[in-house]
């Protein structure tokens, strides 16, 4: 802990586990399908529709049921809808980039559009897991068939084996023509995927 420079800051409230009973009635279909805007509006986000099919797997190879999964990504032009990019002409008015779902079984399907590359980054989706037994873990998922992976600074900070664990594979198309990508998110144990520390900075 850096006692001096942070002395004037308030201590953050502790994160705690979401537990097994995140209310299903808090679900919002619009947050599970970012390839659509609100129904009844003649508008769609720009970009290639994709479906990310994931499996959340625990230390014993079982599905991690009841997990809340959140997604955060750039639009097709690689722009995040955040205050930093306010006024950017490449903001897509029909795309926010934040998604959320609760998976009953541990399988999920997240409909969205392929994020664009931005700055020096390859296309990726940040994934946050809130589940019983843990408070919050985060990682980023990449796409095996997209360019830029070989020079992505985050991917390149990992071993080849770990890079592969974060790469979703293209496996066919849906009836609606969306490209399907699959990923196994192993939370613990053998084949555990890399998770990232968004509290600690390098060198602190």
């Amino acid at each position, binding site marked *: 802990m850096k006692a001096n420079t942070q002395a004037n800051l308030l201590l953050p409230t502790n994160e705690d586990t979401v537990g097994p009973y995140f209310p299903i009635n808090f679900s919002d279909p619009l947050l599970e399908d970012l390839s659509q805007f609100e129904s009844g509006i003649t508008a769609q986000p720009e970009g290639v529709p994709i479906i990310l099919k994931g499996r959340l797997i625990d*230390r014993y190879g079982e599905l*991690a049921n009841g997990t809340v999964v959140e997604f955060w990504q750039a639009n097709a032009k690689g722009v995040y809808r955040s205050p930093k990019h306010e006024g950017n002409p490449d903001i897509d008015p029909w795309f*926010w980039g934040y998604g959320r779902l609760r998976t009953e079984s541990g399988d999920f399907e997240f409909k969205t559009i392929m994020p664009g590359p931005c700055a020096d980054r390859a296309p990726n989706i940040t994934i946050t897991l809130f589940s019983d*037994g843990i408070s919050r873990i985060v990682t980023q998922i990449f796409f095996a068939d997209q360019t830029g992976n070989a020079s992505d600074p985050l991917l390149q900070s990992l071993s080849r084996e770990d890079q592969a664990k974060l790469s979703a594979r293209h496996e066919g198309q849906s009836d609606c023509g969306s490209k399907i990508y699959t990923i196994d998110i192993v939370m613990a144990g053998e084949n555990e995927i890399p998770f*990232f520390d*968004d509290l600690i900075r390098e060198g602190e």
Partner: protein
Amino acid sequence: MPNSGRRLEIGPTDNTSDQRTPRNRLRLIPEIARESFAPYVPQRGLSRQNDWDLTRIAPDLPRAEGVAIEVSGKLQNERGTPISNAMLEIWNANHFGRYRHIEDHSNIPLDEHFLGTGRVFTDSEGNYTFWTISPGAYLARPDIGRWRPKHIHISVSGGGSRLITQLYFPDEPNNASDPMAILMGDDFERNIGKPYETPHIDVDSGLNFDIVVGGRNAVYFE
């Protein structure tokens, strides 16, 4: 000077924690990638009529069993700046310790007048208020006799703020043995509400819980 991230701890007596906690140290995020790890949550999710009052399912229905309480507090960032228009999603067990959730298979009774979920938004000064029934503690691990202490789940989202936490009650016998409380150590104290009196409103007592969102290495300050 750690050059690697934290190793997450496993909650003692918590099977799910053993199953789902990553065993490897968390990886550090290269500076250039840090911004991409800070979601910005759009304003959304209108709350329904009466969503601030979990003590009854609808305004025209009777109160649920148990002790009605008010929970209120201020939402702010580490610098003490109030966070307005953030959504708090709230859920808690009923007076007996049962959730009205399709996956809660315990034999504890449901209360026909209690739903146990609600949503409120913070006002321009970051303040929030809701009413609920003081939840029952429940036996989470009958095999080893471990209880979950009384608690209210609160999920905060809006703008650069994202936090899921639990509010605990003072002087509860099961606080000390709770696996998540054990992991928090001395910090657990900050997740316990501070009682106040509520003389002029239709609840028995109040619990103050100020929430500070922070700690991340990439955030958006408004």
